[in-house]
């Protein structure tokens, strides 16, 4: 039942909140997030006693469309990330509030529910449904609460681009299903049917899936929607996009595609690895040339996701485990970095890095916390980023040392752009006026920093969880 309530609870709350302006929506959203986090932790603890949480109800039996949920290890990890995001994102807006906040957080909770559904379901069509459903809330969030010119153009591009991509996923699913005797979308049946196909067929199916995921992640050359969307969307929307939504794509790759078409990836899917690696380098170079913090974080996110995709596509155990770990770690770091962005933006009024400087002198504690997050993003040892990226590169090295080497470059490039950004804003001679942080800001940032360090020093529990499949 935990699985079902994880899916239903945010959806229902969201729908209620959309229609009730009088509710304290921000607190409610955060509280529901906290409850969900506790539920996920509960499910995690129960796995230690060998209890697996499952739920199954047939929706359209004829075509094998069911609402079936299973809390396996990777699912729990991603569910934990989603719940944490639901808990943290409302409270990281730090006092600054959106107008008509009941609608804003209502949409957010609907989106959280949809993403949760995608992470915990074992029915392919249900996964696809949730994958698409998550788009509608973010579409309205950006359209209504985004800022800047040409908003409609940017939102249209984002929406159509991602929808266009995911239709190919549907096509691949349908193709696999059409080869079955009894139509079913259940994971076990899908894997069985897809494994039985020839390797070139598997290659085509993989291509369909990968186009969908490549748009969402995004991977070069399908990324053109991403920077402007991240930039224009309200910060909570950006957090949702970067921390959780794009994980649906990487998660789908690891959870669904790798087991389904291993042969196809091996023989006909190497182009995807190449694209991912190009994506890492390209995004890193773009990040170096950015002048605004939000765009810097956006591009660094593309680079990290490219790394996850490349590592996963090696289809080795290290690659997969590292992929899941890095998804979780990157999710936390993305929330934390965008929280830093919010704190700076609230105080300085803009995020142009060249026009800031010397914040460390006026607020050394904040600069210190930020620095640790930067280290996490750069994947320095003893941070969570290191564990994930190390495993990913190790996995990649099994298929090609060259690609692993090029991907490894990204760590150096990452250091370059993150440290440059940090140096411009925090160090230097400028003296940007900077109010001290409030207690809640300290707590939230401190908590995230602690999580990044703890996961870096003692990653075993999360790694064990991820490796627990059923």
């Amino acid at each position, binding site marked *: 039942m935990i699985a079902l309530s994880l899916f239903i609870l945010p959806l229902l709350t969201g729908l209620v909140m959309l229609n009730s302006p009088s509710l304290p929506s921000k607190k409610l959203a955060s509280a529901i997030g906290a409850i969900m986090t506790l539920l996920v932790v509960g499910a995690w603890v129960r796995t230690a006693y060998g209890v697996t949480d499952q739920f199954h109800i047939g929706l*359209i039996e*004829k075509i094998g469309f069911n609402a079936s949920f299973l809390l396996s290890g990777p699912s729990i990890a991603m569910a934990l990330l989603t719940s944490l995001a639901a808990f943290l994102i409302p409270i990281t807006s730090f006092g600054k509030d959106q107008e008509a906040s009941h609608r804003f957080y209502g949409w957010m909770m609907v989106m959280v529910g949809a993403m949760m559904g995608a992470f915990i379901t074992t029915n392919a069509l249900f996964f*696809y*449904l949730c994958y*698409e459903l998550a788009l509608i809330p973010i579409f*309205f969030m950006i359209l209504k609460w985004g800022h800047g010119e040409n908003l409609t153009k940017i939102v249209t591009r984002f929406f159509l681009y991602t929808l*266009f991509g995911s239709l190919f996923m*549907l*096509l691949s699913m349908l193709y696999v299903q*059409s080869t079955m005797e009894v139509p079913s979308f259940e994971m076990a049946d899908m894997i069985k049917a897809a494994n039985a196909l020839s390797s070139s067929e598997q290659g085509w199916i993989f291509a369909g899936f990968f186009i969908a995921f490549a748009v969402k992640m995004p991977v070069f050359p399908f990324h053109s929607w991403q920077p402007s969307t991240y930039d224009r969307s309200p910060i909570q929307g950006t957090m949702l996009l970067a921390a959780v939504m794009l994980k649906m794509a990487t998660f789908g790759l690891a959870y669904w595609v790798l087991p389904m078409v291993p042969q196809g990836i091996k023989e006909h899917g190497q182009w995807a690895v190449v694209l991912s690696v190009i994506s890492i380098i390209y995004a890193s170079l773009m990040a170096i040339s950015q002048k605004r913090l939000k765009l810097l974080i956006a591009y660094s996110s593309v680079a990290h996701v490219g790394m996850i995709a490349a590592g996963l596509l090696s289809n080795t155990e290290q690659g997969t485990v590292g992929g899941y770990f890095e998804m979780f770690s990157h999710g936390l770091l993305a929330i934390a970095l965008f929280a830093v962005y919010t704190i700076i933006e609230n105080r300085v009024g803009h995020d142009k890095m060249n026009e800031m400087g010397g914040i460390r002198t006026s607020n050394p504690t904040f600069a210190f916390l930020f620095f640790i997050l930067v280290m996490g993003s750069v994947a320095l040892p003893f941070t969570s980023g290191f564990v994930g990226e190390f495993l990913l590169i190790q996995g990649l090295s099994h298929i090609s040392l060259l690609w692993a080497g090029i991907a490894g470059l990204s760590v150096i490039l990452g250091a370059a752009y993150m440290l440059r950004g940090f140096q411009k804003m925090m160090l230097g001679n400028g003296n940007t006026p900077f109010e001290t942080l409030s207690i809640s800001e300290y707590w939230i940032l401190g908590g995230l920093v602690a999580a990044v360090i703890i996961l870096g020093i003692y990653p075993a529990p999360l790694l064990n969880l991820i490796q627990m499949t059923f």
Partner: protein
Amino acid sequence: MTILLISALLGVILLALEIFKMRSLMFPVIVLSMLGILAGTIIDWGISENIMQQNMMMNDAFALRSIAILTILALGWFITQRNAIEETGNSADLYALLAFSFCGALLMTNFTNMVMLFLAIEILSIPLYVLAASKRGNKASNESGFKYFILGSTASAILLFGITLIYGVTGTFDLYRIHDFIAENSSSTLLMAGIAMVLVGFGFKISAAPFHFWAPDVYQGAPTPITGWMATVVKGAAVLGMYRLFKGAFDGAMPALEGIIALLVALSLIIANGMAAIQTNVKRMLAYSGISHAGFMLASLLLVSFDPTSIFFYVLSYGTASLLAFVILYNLGKEHDEDLSTFHGIATNNPMSAALLSISLLSMAGIPPLAGFFGKYFIIQGIIQNHTWLAVVMILTSVVGMYYYLKVIMAMYSKQTSNVHMHESNRWILSIFAIALMGMFVAVQWL
């Protein structure tokens, strides 16, 4: 038999009510008749033996389900458009014409004889020519009625010619005997020509490309409620009649026709979606989108088995969505035009209408988990094995579709200020439609 009697008598009773000056009874009588028809279908729902009526029609499982779907759509239409009809002042004529047209629609789904089919089409269409022109002072409405009449009659003539050719080869109008004839004999050119002409006639009626030229003008010119009626009940009936004819009687000839049908489908999708994307009038855009949906419904003829679940679901989902869209459009069109620029920012003052229209458009666009997605899904799933290229065309054109539906939604929710205040009537019934669109996929198991 009861079903037929009720629907046939309804129009007459309505005219009689006008004579006896009991206009206020008209609407209740319509609703009661519809409920009676629904009850009639439910009573017979699980029938195992089919009773032929005068060798002309048969209420088998297909007919009963079709009748139920069309009746639900028509009932929804009457309830939501009641005001629109009664505001015109000549509600008796309009109600009666609509009732006759509805009777024709029901006959389209249970005929077993080609003569009956032709009669049904005419009963369905002739009232529509009048209805399309029912805004008498309006030039566009007159033009629309006239155009519809000329092109509709041409289509009927072609259809009739096709029927004649088929009769000439097989010597019968009876669908079962035609079916057996095709199965036993190698198909002759003349027979195929006849079937092809019937296909063309139906292509006109459901407005599939390249026989779609009348649709945008007629849809745009006709009064909005009538356009809604044409897009839901009429189109649904034509598609279901076509399904019954081609998947039933002409089943043996289908392998030869598949290529042509696939081509028509592809043409409809490409032309309609392409044209819809460049329209600035929302009503006209919906007309083009209707052509693309006709393409999808036509594609149901390519399914391997007779199982009509997918076409039922498509008719129901598209019908519900367009019903919703045209009601909102009517509310807006009362004081404003339907140009896209009117839609800018109307969500601020009319949140309910904007939300309902968005749901309807998202469903038509095929965004899961709304009904429209599953409608398209069932069709695509059915044809992907034998016509993979067509499935790809469907998916690619769907993206174009999403673009123009989104344009409207985006306009409504854009930040511009708008002084449009719409009269938001029928909130409850429209909300029920919207909720139905969200949960309709569950109904697949009962169809």
